[in-house]
């Protein structure tokens, strides 16, 4: 069934006349009754009901009757389907069928659209017409306005059993409306079942020329703001806006959100919660990686059957380029449908994303091998999508009054060698393979002059035969050939590779069906002709040794190995099948760096229990605690990194505008980032995940704990204050970006003079916004950007400001004073030592690098004594990383305060523990070793400030997320699992699976972000491609 008669596909155009009332007719009207009776069939009415020996009556477009004992009225064409099956034709819940790629252009992009991703700067839409400001919000698009029947594509889908599809425009963040259409080859007017099936969304801005958003967090902010704008729009009379108007009009439709991975499902679900929307998610099929969270959305899904091909792993060096994650994903992808079914999650299936729709059935059968029930498979292809698209009254099951959309098959639809014979769409027949045709598969003995001792083996499917020939004798030869059938005629050719030399061509007819006998004339390699006869001798030989060929039908298919490894959390290297639990532990006889007034205590015990530090003291009783001898070792509070860019999806900067206070790193936390784990191995337990420094006012920030394996929401530091990133200097001026020749738009500011004005302007607007909201309440358009700034004015949101040189630091202090806000922290602050007195007077903290300098002009006077000087002046001083590598040895960076400036060791360690905790207002929970605080602690092999110190164990909330003593075993277990997966891939290749090269997998590099990373990330988080940039913020 997956193989279809490539040469015999007779697409029969049956010209029933339409009562096309509004269209004139050329010649006499050709109105036909279109009355058919399909009898003696096994009729699968729905996944829940099957009628044996049933009859289906159709008239023109609709089903008249379906049942076991139905009298056939006169005037019906009767089709006897004895031994055959009838199913409702399938529904593909997600396609771009009939929507030309040009649809995007049809709805217009701006005049500056040539720029694509970020090269040409387009601050606001240049599209003609009263549209919204951002071209990625295209709610005005409607598939029906650009739809046109695509007979070739329809045929492709009909071949594999589909009769109805959802058709959408795949472009933009708000994508307008889709429709449900049948795959009929008729005038467009007749195939539309629902002209507004659903409203569509994604996080990808698509072809929009507007620079904003360039990041995933920007996409999220834009969509949220659009919801608020649309609410406001309803009650205002100031402007007409097509985009918002249409956005509102489409809100009552089903809302479909296309996302990539499970994390993005969670992100969209959060938006849905905020605006009371229950989205249907179209995903990439990796829900199994975060099943509980998927279930918790309460949503339905549309999932693809895009299972990765096994990788080429024979070359062990190349195989090293395939990650553990990729191998696991390869193995587990086919389990996804079954996993969702078992979890009780409602889903529809789609062909979307398949390189070749011809692989649909093979993949579906694979999913069934992995536990998807046939019942659910059928539902996911019929009743469920029908309901999602609002066409359950028309298609999805076989019932009187519904569309005559059904398929006729040789067998159970899900059996591997089933054949789809016909696919009827709206009462119109589409022939895939001729009904009632004999099956020619089998082994044949060939006779004829010069053709003796040749055995033919015809395998494959009746739709697509494969031929192999075997010359027996002293020097036996096997070869594959071609077998073509047209009606009762057959032709074949094969080359016995020198035995004799050249191609033997046969042409003939079926002369008998019992046993099958074929007869005709052959042309031999020497040009001579001879008669031949091939007589059936038995079933086709199974595969092996090339005889029987690939895909030789069910008989030859290798049994799928359905034993799979466990899902790991997070789904990457070093993920755990079980997330570790909090432990009760007594550390005996350690040197304890309390960061409290007790200072550094020798020969001291620490007891942790229920995720908290229970006691610190001498000779503590163990009770039920596990005892760890920490003699000669050191215990410190977990390291807190004030400035980190790890664990982010889809970009670190939304630098397209000078002010992007509306974006939030909280929206794009990536729990699957290996750096979370690597940093645990360096004693880091808390990180402040910052927006980059591309603009004066960046995004809102998120403090996380390194709870390796937990979902993004669970990483967030409970109850922590909200922060926001500001930035000064070269990055916000864009001074290190290449100058764009002939650019007509350059983002303000380009000087430090301009930077000041950005702040003054932004806070002026925020004040006015605040005042207006106070008076007029919700009548004032809710502005997420100004709201964040107003929170700063209200002392509810706190600033950490990327800064280098003294002039600009001084400037911002003055702006803050004049506008009435406070700066919590200057981060990087390499010239903090020059203005430490001013910072002190304003109670501003300084978070800096230990020793970075000379990487750009504004750090020409950065000195490693900066921390010491700020500390001595009395500032809360810390050292941060801004770098995934440095973050995992921040303890050493703290040690450099001893190298440069001879700070006391006790105070030096606070630079990376207690002091950043103070800056982040979390020092009541973390940052020191004190009874009652969170058990976020590190056991070090030596003085933690020393180059020789190794983090042996790192606990977060009492959970040992990093344990050096377990690491070797963990690596070994990974190696074993990897070896198992590699062997399985080699086996898969051996049994004929197509493979993919290592490194061909879309370049799955994971970006590592620093302040300065400003690539447009849009392409990345859509395709999975990553970018990297090197160099410091």
């Amino acid at each position, binding site marked *: 069934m997956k193989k279809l008669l490539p040469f015999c596909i007779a697409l029969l155009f049956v010209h029933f006349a339409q009562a096309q009332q509004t269209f004139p007719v050329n010649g006499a009207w050709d109105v036909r009754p279109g009355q058919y009776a399909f009898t003696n069939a096994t009729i699968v009415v729905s996944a829940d009901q099957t009628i044996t020996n049933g009859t289906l009556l159709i008239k023109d477009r609709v089903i008249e009757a379906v049942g076991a004992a139905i009298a056939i009225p006169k005037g019906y064409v009767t089709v006897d389907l004895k031994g055959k099956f009838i199913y409702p034709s399938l529904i593909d819940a997600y396609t771009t069928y009939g929507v030309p790629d040009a649809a995007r252009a049809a709805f217009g992009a701006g005049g500056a659209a040539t720029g694509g991703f970020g090269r040409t700067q387009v601050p606001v839409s240049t599209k003609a017409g009263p549209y919204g400001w951002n071209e990625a919000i295209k709610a005005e698009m409607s598939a029906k306005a650009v739809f046109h029947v695509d007979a070739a594509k329809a045929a492709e889908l009909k071949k594999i059993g589909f009769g109805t599809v959802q058709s959408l425009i795949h472009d933009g963040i708000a994508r307008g409306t889709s429709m449900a259409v049948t795959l009929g080859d008729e005038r467009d007017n007749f195939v539309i079942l629902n002209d507004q099936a659903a409203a569509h969304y994604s996080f990808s801005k698509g072809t929009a020329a507007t620079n904003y958003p360039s990041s995933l967090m920007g996409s999220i902010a834009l969509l949220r703001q659009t919801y608020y704008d649309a609410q406001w729009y309803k009650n205002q009379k100031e402007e007409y806006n097509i985009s918002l108007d249409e956005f509102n009009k489409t809100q009552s439709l089903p809302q479909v959100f296309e996302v990539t*991975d499970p*994390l993005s499902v969670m992100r969209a679900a959060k938006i849905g919660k905020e605006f009371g929307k229950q989205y249907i998610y179209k995903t*990439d*099929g*990796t829900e199994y990686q975060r099943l509980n969270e998927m279930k918790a959305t309460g949503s339905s899904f549309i999932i693809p059957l895009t299972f*990765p*091909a096994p990788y080429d792993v024979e070359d062990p*060096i190349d195989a*090293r*380029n395939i*990650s553990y*994650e*990729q191998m696991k994903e390869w193995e587990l992808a086919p389990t996804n449908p079954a996993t969702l079914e078992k979890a009780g999650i409602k889903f529809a299936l789609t062909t979307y994303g398949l390189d070749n729709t011809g692989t649909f059935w093979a993949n579906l059968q694979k999913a069934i091998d992995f536990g998807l029930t046939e019942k659910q498979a059928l539902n996911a292809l019929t009743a469920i999508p029908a309901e999602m698209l609002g066409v359950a009254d028309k298609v999805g099951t076989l019932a009187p009054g519904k569309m005559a959309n059904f398929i006729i098959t040789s067998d159970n639809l899900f059996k591997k060698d089933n054949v789809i014979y016909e696919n009827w769409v709206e009462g119109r027949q589409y022939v895939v393979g001729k009904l009632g045709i004999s099956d020619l598969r089998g082994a044949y003995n060939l006779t004829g002059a010069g053709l003796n001792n040749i055995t033919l083996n015809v395998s494959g499917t009746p739709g697509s035969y494969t031929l192999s020939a075997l010359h027996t004798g002293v020097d036996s030869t096997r070869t594959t050939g071609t077998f073509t059938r047209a009606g009762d005629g057959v032709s074949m050719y094969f080359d016995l590779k020198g035995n004799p030399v050249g191609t033997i061509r046969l042409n003939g007819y079926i002369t008998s069906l019992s046993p099958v006998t074929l007869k005709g004339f052959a042309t031999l390699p020497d040009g001579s002709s001879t008669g031949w006869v091939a007589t059936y001798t038995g079933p086709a030989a199974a595969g092996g040794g090339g005889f029987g060929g690939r895909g030789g039908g069910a008989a030859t298919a290798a049994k799928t190995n359905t034993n799979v490894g466990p899902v790991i959390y997070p789904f*990457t*290297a*070093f993920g755990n099948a079980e997330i570790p639990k909090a432990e009760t532990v007594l550390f005996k006889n350690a040197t304890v760096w309390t960061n409290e007034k007790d200072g550094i205590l020798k020969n001291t015990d620490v007891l942790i229990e229920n995720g908290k530090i229970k006691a610190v003291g001498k000779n503590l009783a163990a009770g039920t605690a596990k005892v760890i001898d920490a003699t000669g070792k050191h215990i410190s509070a977990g390291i807190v990194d004030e400035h980190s860019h790890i664990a982010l999806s889809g970009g670190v900067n939304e630098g397209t505008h000078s002010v992007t206070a509306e974006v939030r790193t909280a929206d794009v936390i990536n729990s*699957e980032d*290996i750096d979370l784990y690597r940093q645990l*191995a360096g004693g880091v337990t808390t990180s402040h995940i910052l927006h980059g420094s591309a603009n004066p006012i960046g995004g809102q920030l998120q403090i996380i704990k390194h709870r390796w394996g937990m979902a993004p929401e669970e990483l967030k530091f409970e109850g922590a204050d909200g922060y926001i990133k500001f930035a000064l200097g*070269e990055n916000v001026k864009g*001074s290190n970006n290449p100058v764009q020749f002939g650019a007509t738009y350059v983002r303000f500011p380009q000087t430090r003079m301009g930077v000041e004005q950005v702040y003054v302007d932004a806070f002026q607007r925020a004040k006015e916004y605040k005042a207006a909201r106070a008076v007029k309440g919700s009548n004032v358009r809710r502005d997420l950007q100004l709201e964040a700034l107003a929170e700063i004015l209200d002392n509810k949101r706190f600033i950490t400001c990327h800064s280098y040189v003294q002039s600009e630091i001084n400037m911002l202090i003055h702006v803050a004073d004049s506008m009435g806000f406070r700066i919590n922290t200057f981060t990087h602050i390499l010239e903090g*030592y020059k203005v*430490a007195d001013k910072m002190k007077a304003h109670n501003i903290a300084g978070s800096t690098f230990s*020793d970075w*300098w*000379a*990487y*750009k*002009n504004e750090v020409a006077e950065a000195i*490693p*004594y900066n921390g010491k*000087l700020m500390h001595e*002046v009395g500032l809360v001083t810390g050292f941060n990383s801004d770098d*995934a*590598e*440095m973050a995992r*040895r921040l303890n050493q960076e703290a*040690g450099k305060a*001893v*190298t440069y*400036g*001879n700070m006391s060791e006790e105070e030096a360690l606070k630079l990376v523990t207690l002091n950043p905790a103070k800056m982040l207002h979390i020092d009541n929970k973390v940052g020191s070793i004190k009874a009652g605080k969170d058990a976020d602690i590190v056991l070090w092999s030596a*003085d933690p400030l*020393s*180059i*020789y110190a190794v983090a042996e164990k790192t606990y977060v909330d009492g959970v040992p997320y990093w344990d050096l003593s377990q*690491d070797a075993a963990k690596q070994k277990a990974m190696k074993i699992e990897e070896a198992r997966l590699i062997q399985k891939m080699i086996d898969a290749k051996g049994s004929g699976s197509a493979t*993919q*090269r290592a*490194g*061909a*997998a879309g*370049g*799955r*590099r*994971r970006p*590592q972000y620093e302040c300065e990373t400003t690539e447009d990330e849009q392409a990345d988080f859509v*395709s999975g491609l990553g970018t*990297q940039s090197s*160099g410091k913020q």
Partner: protein
Amino acid sequence: MKKIFLSLGGLLLGTILTYGQATISPAKPQSAAIIITGATIHIGNGQVIDKGYIAFDKGKITAVGTGAAPAIAGAQVIDATGKQLYPGFICPITTLGLVEIEEGARGTVDDTETGDMNPNVRSLIAYNTDSKVIPTVRSNGVLLAQPTPEGGTISGQSSVVQLDAWNWEDAAYKSDIGLHLTWPASSRGGRRGGGRGLPVAGATTETPAERAQKALDALDSYFAQAKAYAEVKQPVANLRFAAMAGLFNGTKKLFVNADGTKEILQAIAFAKKYNLQMVLVGGKEAYMVADVLKENNVPVIIKETQALPSKDDDDVYLPYKMPKILQDAGVLYGLTGIGFWRQRNLPFEAGQAVGYGLTKEQALSMITLNNAKILGIDKTTGSLEVGKDANLFISPGDALDMITLDVTTAFIQGRNINMDNLHKQLYKKFSDKYGLKP
């Protein structure tokens, strides 16, 4: 700060503490014999002498031993009792002196010439002895460096310089020691994994391996022509090929930047074919082929221990463990950091490996004697042995650890160098502003 200005028996008379970069002058030649006594002497070859002495005159080490130092008439004696004495650190493969401001100040960047094949380009003449960065690196014990060109396939030639000089001629320690080649990468390299979303089938017909093979063929042809060129006197000079002649007569080394296993193996075979003295630079996957490196006597200059693993699946500490792996395999390995200003962390890059298996003396050898051997300067420096240059420094504590490193006194070729730098000056300036004692 007090430790930095700790005066040692009046010896630091030459170090006049005024605050202006221009006054950090190169030291005068050694005028009298010097004996340092009572120190723990780290020879650089793995040996440690407890309570030892070292004597040097006219820039050369004349005696090293334990116990009472021999009397030398007219010698200055430095009592370093309880202190540590080290050979000066050697920083290979660096852009120190070639770059002053990394970004946004192109006028200060002289490390990458345009074009792909630049064997004739020489870093020595671009080495800026007046760089403000050099004294900050020197302050952490780095006394010699190899300013190295970057970019293209053949980036040019490097030299070894000593870090206390009036001009590049003075600085030259060993000129034009080798050429730098970046091996064509056959795979993507870099990190892997982490990307989500589904694989995209390879669409291009030319695989990365095929592209790399083309590049390799071109490289091979280039070397074949360069070798033939060197065999006879040429009527028409080709500066590029002429610059490569030393590779084929063994007077110049070929430093090959390669990280992947395949690339390293290819490079080794290539060096063997042309009988080149190859040094592997970087070698992130050198641990995979350590036995081949050993067998072919190819030394490795590790780039950074303080780095992330290149693959998600790798041991999280792999870069920290690399020196130990090469040590155990018997490979000659040295170490560098990256960039230019960051080379002041060279001692810590070395110390990093100690928590992961290396001994402290082995870690020290990485950045002293091993680097000297790899650069071909071990006859005159790299360890504290009689006859070698007096390139050495004193630190009260362990120089590989940040909490104890404190280079109070340093000598290059017996010259007592000025340990001041821009950062110390600014520290002093602002300590004064706030009324703090540095």
